[in-house]
């Protein structure tokens, strides 16, 4: 247990170790630690912000969805109305067309009846003339009796 130069040697060694630690060991380690601390804090706040953003986005999305639903419902409504209109209009058209066709047919029938009557009338006149010829035994001069014949035909 002698006190000797070791004392001074130990002090010098201590001083050198402390110097080295102060200069080369402590700063990089503590810097890395505080940098990591900052990183973690940043990460946490980013996560907070992200969850807030997510909430907002979800809200917005549900709003959009609601709007889209409303729009689509309106569209369907409109389409239904339009379809009904079209159906109504086509029914109308069809009815008109039908009436027109019926009208035309009636007109044609009328015309044919007139024609047939005329033809019949002519034929009846001819037959009447033939009958009269037979009765009179002479030919009837068509020219001379045309007035009478026409009168007859008109009566038929």
């Amino acid at each position, binding site marked *: 247990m002698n006190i000797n130069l070791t*004392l001074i040697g130990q*002090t010098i060694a201590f001083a050198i170790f402390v110097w080295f630690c102060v200069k080369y060991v402590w700063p990089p*380690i503590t810097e890395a*630690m505080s*940098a990591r601390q900052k990183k973690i804090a940043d990460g946490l706040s980013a996560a907070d912000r992200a969850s807030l953003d997510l909430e907002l986005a979800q809200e917005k999305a549900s709003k959009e969805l609601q709007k889209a639903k409303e729009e689509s419902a309106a569209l369907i409504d409109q389409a239904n109305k339009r379809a009904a209109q079209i159906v109504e209009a086509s029914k109308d058209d069809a009815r008109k067309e039908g009436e027109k066709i019926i009208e035309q047919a009636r007109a044609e029938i009328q015309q044919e009846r007139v024609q047939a009557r005329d033809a019949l009338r002519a034929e009846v006149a001819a037959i009447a003339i033939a009958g009269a010829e037979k009765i009179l035994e002479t030919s009837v001069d068509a020219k001379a009796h045309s007035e009478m014949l026409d009168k007859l035909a008109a009566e038929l």
Partner: protein
Amino acid sequence: MAADTPVEYIKHHLTNLTYGKLPEGYERADGSVVQEATWTMARTGQEATDMGFMAIHVDTMGWSIAMGLLFLGLFRMVAKKATTDTPSGLQNFVEMTVEFIQNIVRDVFHGKNPIIAPLALTMFVWIFLMNSLKLIPVDYIPSVAHALGLEYFKIVPTTDPNGTFGIAIGVFLLILFYSFKVKGAGGFAKELSFTPFNHWSLVPFNLVLELLALIIKPVSLALRLFGNMYAGEVVFILIALLPLWIQWTLNVPWAIFHILVITLQAFIFTTLAVVYLSAAHEDH
């Protein structure tokens, strides 16, 4: 081993490997007489004592420097590739230690000085490593040294008062330096003269008290550490004297207990040094 009786065994284990200067005309243990003053390795404890102040404990210096280099090497390696991402196992361990020291310094030290925390880290880890050499069985390394031709070999630097006083002197110089730097020579002198009793007539009394308190700081630091480690070492040596089959029943609990003592003493030394330095920074 050169020891035959228990007393010799204990003495042998408590003697440092000393390299020093023997005075002219000194009669050595083997009867030869030194012709002129020479630097040589002491062959007996008596020779080591007679070398006086001009001697150095090679084992204390060697092991303390080795432990210091181990500490700095390990921490420097981690510091160099310190990552801000997920740290690896070793970096975790180093950061844990650094954080532990940061907490102590934050709690105890109230000034602003970037030196204090790394200083405390150095003290804590270095002293811890030196103390933990004690857990190596007492005969292992001295036996190896003996086989290599070294008569004495005491591996725990903190069981050598030179080792602990050396560190305490370093702390003491820092206390003086910061006292002068922060308070100024006048302020420091005033603090020594006018506390605890603020009256001119009590200045001499105050001075004696305060100077004593100042000097007792490094002495208490060094002696506390030395005393604890030395006593523990002596008990280990005593246990080693028992019959082989019974040793484990005593040295296992003692070693387990010393895991606590080693850490605690390093912690106390560090904390008290920081407390003293904090007081040195306080300007009244």
